[in-house]
């Protein structure tokens, strides 16, 4: 009974598509269509619709393939009981701040459920998520299988057994355990890598590059065909030795400064910025501070790089201070950074977004020290700024005794305090950057100030505290 109808459907649809009556060709259903042509067409339409809806199935391609399964990651998922709270917080963290929660959970020994969050292939996330990044890349590329990641350290032999993200994570581990071996492996593989891959690996090398890496960096800086790896290698080289820029530029820059005796007895020195008369001079100084590396600048001034931040004329020209901080964050040697940080904390300008570049280069403890700077002022988004400086690499204790927290307390009732969206942002950021002890203190103070525990803006603080009770502390 069904086969004749199947056979009939193609001509029926073809006739309707063109506007021709189809009832005459619907031989299988002629007895029920009736004599009236208009009625017959409508009846045929009703019958055909029902037939197509119930009896006709899409042809299944023979080449259907399953996607590779999502790999497990090294840390367990957060406890089920916290899942609703985590989902609520993730819903509030719509931008890159979501990564703050990813880092917080990793610090407390947990991973997120891939149903709630999945990293993009190039997100800056803890290395534990590298298998998921490789999986996402494999799905996008239409790969049908995903090889298991080797347990062995990365080597030239097992190079291709890793996916791009897990390989980068393995390279970072190798660099940590065997710096020279990582350098040699990079040297061995680099001619077979794409520019983006070379750039990523060079970034890992650059985090703690030392004098032993100079030959490789020189080679890349002079021979790499791609612009970005070449520029990065040049920058990393500039942190190690002088001479990576035109000497005349460094000399020209020193012309904007003098070194004068300072102190009561005149036994100390201080750098003094020459007064500028024209905008052109300002532009030239800004350009040179951007282009000349710190080591070349210090050498031209005949100073040690570590002396630069000590002798710098802080608080005379805020723009000049920020240009110097940016210069040091970009090209300053590692040895210069602790002194620079102390000078900034003692005399530097208040927090600006420019500090983020410097924070990138600081170790965790120093980064946390810098992140406290915005909290010292009742800025509009002080905790949010501190969160940006930490970038998931640390937590702050004792946030309660800060002007920024007092501003949050006052904002509940103050008419001219933080706006409602800014207050919500600050409470979220506070929850993301506080240690469990600081989170408990903050929660107690907030409740005392009239915030109700059920307030969803306090979800992140509550989650922070709950994770302390359940988490396997790192």
């Amino acid at each position: 009974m069904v086969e004749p109808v199947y056979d009939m459907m193609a001509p029926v649809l073809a006739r309707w598509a063109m506007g021709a009556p189809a009832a005459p060709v619907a031989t299988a259903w002629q007895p029920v269509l009736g004599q009236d042509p208009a009625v017959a067409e409508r009846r045929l339409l009703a019958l055909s619709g029902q037939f197509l809806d119930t009896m006709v199935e899409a042809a299944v391609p023979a080449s259907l393939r399953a996607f590779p399964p999502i790999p497990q990651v090294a840390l367990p998922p957060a406890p089920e009981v916290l899942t609703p709270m985590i989902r609520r917080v993730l819903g509030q963290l719509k931008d890159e701040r979501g990564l703050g929660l990813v880092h917080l959970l990793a610090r407390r020994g947990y991973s997120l459920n891939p149903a709630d969050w999945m990293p993009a292939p190039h997100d800056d996330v803890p290395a534990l998520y590298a298998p998921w990044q490789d999986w996402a890349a494999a799905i996008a590329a239409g790969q049908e299988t995903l090889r298991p990641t080797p347990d062995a350290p990365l080597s030239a032999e097992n190079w291709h057994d890793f996916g791009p993200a897990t390989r980068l994570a393995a390279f970072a581990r190798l660099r940590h355990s065997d710096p020279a071996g990582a350098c040699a492996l990079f040297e061995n593989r680099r001619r077979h890598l794409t520019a983006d891959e070379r750039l990523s690996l060079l970034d890992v090398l650059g985090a703690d590059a030392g004098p032993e890496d100079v030959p490789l960096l020189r080679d890349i800086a002079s021979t790499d065909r791609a612009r970005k790896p070449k520029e990065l290698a040049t920058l990393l080289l500039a942190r190690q030795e002088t001479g990576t820029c035109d000497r005349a530029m460094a000399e020209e820059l020193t012309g904007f400064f003098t070194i004068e005796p300072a102190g009561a007895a005149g036994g100390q020195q201080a750098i003094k910025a020459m007064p500028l008369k024209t905008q052109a001079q300002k532009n030239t100084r800004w350009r040179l501070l951007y282009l000349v590396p710190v080591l070349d600048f210090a050498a031209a001034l005949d100073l040690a790089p570590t002396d630069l931040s000590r002798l710098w004329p802080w608080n005379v020209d805020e723009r000049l201070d920020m240009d110097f901080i940016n210069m040091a964050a970009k090209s300053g040697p590692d040895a210069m950074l602790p002194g620079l940080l102390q000078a900034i904390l003692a005399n530097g300008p208040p927090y600006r977004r420019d500090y983020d570049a410097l924070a990138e280069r600081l170790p965790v403890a120093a980064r946390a020290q810098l992140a406290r700077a915005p909290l010292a002022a009742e800025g509009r988004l002080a905790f949010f700024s501190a969160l940006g400086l930490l970038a998931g690499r640390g937590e702050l204790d004792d946030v309660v005794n800060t002007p920024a927290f007092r501003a949050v307390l006052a904002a509940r009732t103050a008419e001219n305090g933080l706006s409602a969206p800014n207050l919500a942002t600050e409470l979220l950021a506070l929850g993301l950057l506080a240690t469990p002890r600081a989170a408990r203190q903050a929660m107690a103070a907030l409740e005392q100030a009239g915030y109700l525990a059920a307030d969803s803006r306090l979800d992140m603080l509550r989650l922070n505290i709950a994770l302390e009770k359940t988490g396997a502390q790192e």
Partner: protein
Amino acid sequence: MQIDPGIVEQLAVDQASLRAGLGLAKPAKWSGLGHSPDETLLWGECAGSGARPYRVMVDARDMGSKCTCPSRKFPCKHVLGLICLCAGHKAPFAPGAPPEWVGEWLARRRPKAATTPAVARPAGMAPDLEAARQARPNTPDDPKAEARREDAARKRAEETTQAVCCALGTLEQWIGDQLRLGLGSFVDNMPERCRQVAARLVDGKATALASRVDELPARILALPAGARLQASVVELGKLVQLACAFRAAPQRPDLRRLVCTAETRESVLAHPDTRSVHAVWEVLASQQHMQRDRLVVQTTWLLNLGDGGPRFAMLVDFFPKGAGVQRGGLFMPGAYFTGTVAFYPAPYLLRAILCEHAALQPDDPPPDWPAGEPPRATINAALLAAPWSLEVPLMLPAGRIMHDEAKHLWWRADDGSLTLPLAGDVPPVWLGTDLTRATGLWAHGRLTLLAARSAWGRLYHG
């Protein structure tokens, strides 16, 4: 929890609100009543005219309040009802952690300033609690007036049926025209042609059918170009069937609902064929779309985790655009509750109203998903009972999402007995895991996945 009963007098904007609020201070109208342990917050859900209850919350510190109803009075009668209920100790309020929607409201609100003026009312118009409490004198029944009202109602219904039948005639003629002009050209000019006939259906009092015809192009144009001709035949064929069925039985409530307008909540609950099912329910999905008449349609899909009654229930609510369907007023996917759902009378039970309900205790593990009927059998049974149905909810057995060479997605049963094309994308996690169970909507030969169980836990999409 202690609240001064007289406070409602100060809060009510007028006597009518106060009287209506007192009328709502009946435990039967409320579910999920609770207060915070520190007695600063109280909340509850009050049955309104929609499929889902209104969510009402009060901050007892400054009597700030919020209700998800669309009333422009502030506070509305539901808030006053909740306060009366609590102040009069007429129903038990369970102490406990406030629900998520109360927390979200708290996050949005600013506390009232100490200097907030009292509600401004004209002199002598202050609401009076005692007057509101006094029952309205019952007007004696006038049999003649009652008979006149019934006659008028019957006459109106007959006129509506007559007008709708005329409109259906217009629709059938229009369908015939589309066949004569060619469905190829219909597919190319669908929005304009459907809009024209939808306007004529509105004139003919077939408003629900008009919305359906108006949204027909959106449903078809969402399909691949190669599937649109066949989908047009299916859609127009369903319209023909619906028109025929209405003419044959214009009083059938399911047909009047699809052609004219849906019944009120009260008439559904009073109808002898209404079936009420008490069970544990899981919220599968919460979907919104806007109709051309600028009404936002909010559809909530529920899964019956019990043994008896229909497996799925569909709650439908309407909001005017701009009234703001707030997240706090919605059931979020993944929520569980135990409650009674009343199904609109129909041969294929699906659309429903949520009656009383209560949150599942946190310690109670939600039941597993039950096995469903074979998907093909479910589709055929639904389309046999109601051939004009546009979508059929399905419970799928264990399966996995696959892809073809063109990167189109398919769901395939583990035993290979069934393979269905998917209507759209799904979140990445769905692709890389076995789905031990899944639910979805079947429409136009394609499956839209709503929720699933997997090794990574419960998955929701929508």
